């Protein structure tokens, strides 16, 4: 270890702020470590709660492990060879890694929007209808039509696509594709929605639509969102977590993090002196 590392380790230390929430959290991580292989640890001892009907924003420099932690919450990391998750993660007081909960069922409850838009090479309609069909969430075709329309409307994509529902989803622009992916996720009506930089490919108007959507969804869902935009984190989130090199440096109510950060690294980052 050279001097820089020692200094950094001292700086990173324990999470400051307020990782726990009052009452029963919807989801909760306790001492989570993630290894991509024996010598590549991506997440170090992270504990954080996701409160019911709140938005948790996850910020931090690129490569600090935000996506990795997010993917632990619906066990997407199971699909990566050699990825090991230790510690405990609870959904409604049930340990999702040890209890009998099936990862397939878990992913129906904890939906995810990925960092890169990844629509299926199928029609727009089939993209949105895939989840409901998979789980048999409707009894007839008109119900499915309703779900598709509702989901696309919520994602702010209905107007643009209502005349081309049978066109391939991959023919949309990057931003439209991302909104399609959001519509696809909310069509399953998950309890928790994980969003990995959902607006990084969107223009300001589409971004505003998505932010409104998140705000609206909050009343019935729990949301965790990774973002690189401080303004967005400040605008939409109830709580904000700052990550650095795989450690959770600080987590607290958003207004406290942005107005009165406890940790020097957090302050550097949000004031733009780092990252």
């Amino acid at each position, binding site marked *: 270890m050279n001097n820089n590392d020692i200094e950094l380790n001292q700086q990173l230390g324990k999470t400051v702020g307020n990782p726990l929430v009052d009452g029963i959290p919807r989801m909760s991580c306790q001492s989570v470590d993630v290894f991509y292989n024996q010598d590549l640890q991506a997440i170090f001892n992270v504990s954080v709660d996701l409160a019911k009907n709140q938005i948790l924003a996850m910020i931090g420099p690129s490569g600090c492990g935000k996506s990795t932690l997010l993917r632990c919450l619906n066990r997407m990391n199971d699909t990566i060879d050699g990825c090991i998750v230790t510690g405990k993660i609870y959904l409604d007081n049930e340990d999702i890694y040890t209890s009998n909960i099936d990862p397939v069922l878990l992913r*129906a409850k904890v939906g995810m929007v*990925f960092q890169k838009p*990844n*629509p299926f*090479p199928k029609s727009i309609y089939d993209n949105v209808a895939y989840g409901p069909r998979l789980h048999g969430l409707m009894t007839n075709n008109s119900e499915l039509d309703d779900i598709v329309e509702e989901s696309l409307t919520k994602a702010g994509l209905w107007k643009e696509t209502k005349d081309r529902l049978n066109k391939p989803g*991959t*023919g949309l622009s990057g931003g439209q594709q991302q909104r399609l992916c959001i519509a696809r996720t909310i069509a399953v009506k998950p309890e928790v929605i994980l969003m990995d930089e959902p607006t990084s490919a969107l223009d300001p108007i589409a971004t505003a639509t998505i932010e409104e959507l998140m705000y609206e969804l909050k009343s019935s869902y729990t949301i965790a969102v990774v973002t690189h935009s401080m303004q967005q984190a400040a605008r939409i989130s109830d709580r904000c977590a700052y990550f650095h090199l795989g450690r959770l440096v600080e987590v607290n109510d958003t207004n406290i993090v942005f107005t009165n950060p406890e940790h020097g690294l957090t302050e550097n980052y949000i004031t733009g002196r780092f990252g």
Partner: protein
Amino acid sequence: MNNTQIVQKSLKKRYAKERRFKIYGVFSIIVSLAFLLFLLVDIVLKSTPAFTQTYIKLDIDFSYKVLNIDPKPNYTKDELFKSSYRNLISKALYQLFPDVSSRKQKRALRKLISSGAQYHLRDLVIERPQLIGTSQSVWVLADDDIDTFFKGLIDRNLPEADRRIKDIQITWIDKLQSKDRIKRQFNASFLTSGDSREPEQAGILGALKGSLYTMLVTLLLSFPIGVAAAVYLEEFAPKNNWWIDVIEVNINNLAAVPSIVFGILGLAVYINLFGVPRSAPLAGGLVLSLMTLPTIIIATRAAIKSVPPSIREAALGLGASKIQVITHHVLPLAMPGILTGSIIGMAQALGESAPLLMIGMVAFVADIPQGFFDPSTVLPVQIYIWSDSPERAFIALTSAAIIVLLIFLFLMNLLAVLLRNKFETKW
């Protein structure tokens, strides 16, 4: 020099390189096309004689006496089957050339007509018994030497000893021609009959059906097994596991094993151990499946690997189970690649003859196979058999059989292209 100038200087070189590369490419395409064209033209030219055949018009007297049959209102098929039809032809020939008297000349005269003509007459009579007792003009098949001569492939100016046709036979043919009693006609029997020792009677249908049945067995076995094996290895098998590695290495090696080894294996295991009928399409298909399997497995694995992981993640993230991800997304997206690999494997199998020689598909089979258990041969083996036969007319038949094989291959490829287009996803 500033950057623009530096870039501009190298730009010329880069474009020159590009042009040179293009020229190489065009040149190699032209060379390979030229070879292909040469081959095709050669085969087509050589095969043309096989598509027509020489017929001679004889006035056949279906008399009771020659047929050795008693007049009665109805005949059983058996009675008609047993009658002698060869004499009908001899009689008609002697009648046509009354001045032929010596035994030797008579034999030469009878040699004008194919030995298969009598069966043609027999079939005629069985089909229409009312012919018996009447006299009819019938076009009968000429012998292959006559056929070859009539097509101009034997030079009449050669000394008699150097050609397979005698001077006197030539005068007869000339006489027949002056009377309009000899003609060339489309050789329909090439497409409707099985193999024969006599080239004028030999047809491709037996080998074609044999190939068809064999390919069916191969496809039905190797496609599902190959795809299932590839899906397991790619999606379910534990990674970094030594026995999976062993299987992988073995599959790759299997693809490189000389095909005759599979033939020996098939002989030992399928025929001697399990008692699969020798020379049958079933045995052939089983052996060829061994050859095709590694190709299909390797192609399928590559196709599955090329499905973007983001698509799997999307489906998994929505709560699809592993098998749903595979059947809903991975296999449909991999299908064009799987089909390409399968068709390459099937095309190899279609052209394969070495392993089939080992399991007896080289036997002379005159009957057209009616199923998976009948003795049969396949197109490449038929080509091999014919190319090895001494009669001159088999040269044309060999080329014609190659054309049939190529058409079979072309149709298979066409089917694959159509299927691929159907499964192709637009990204």
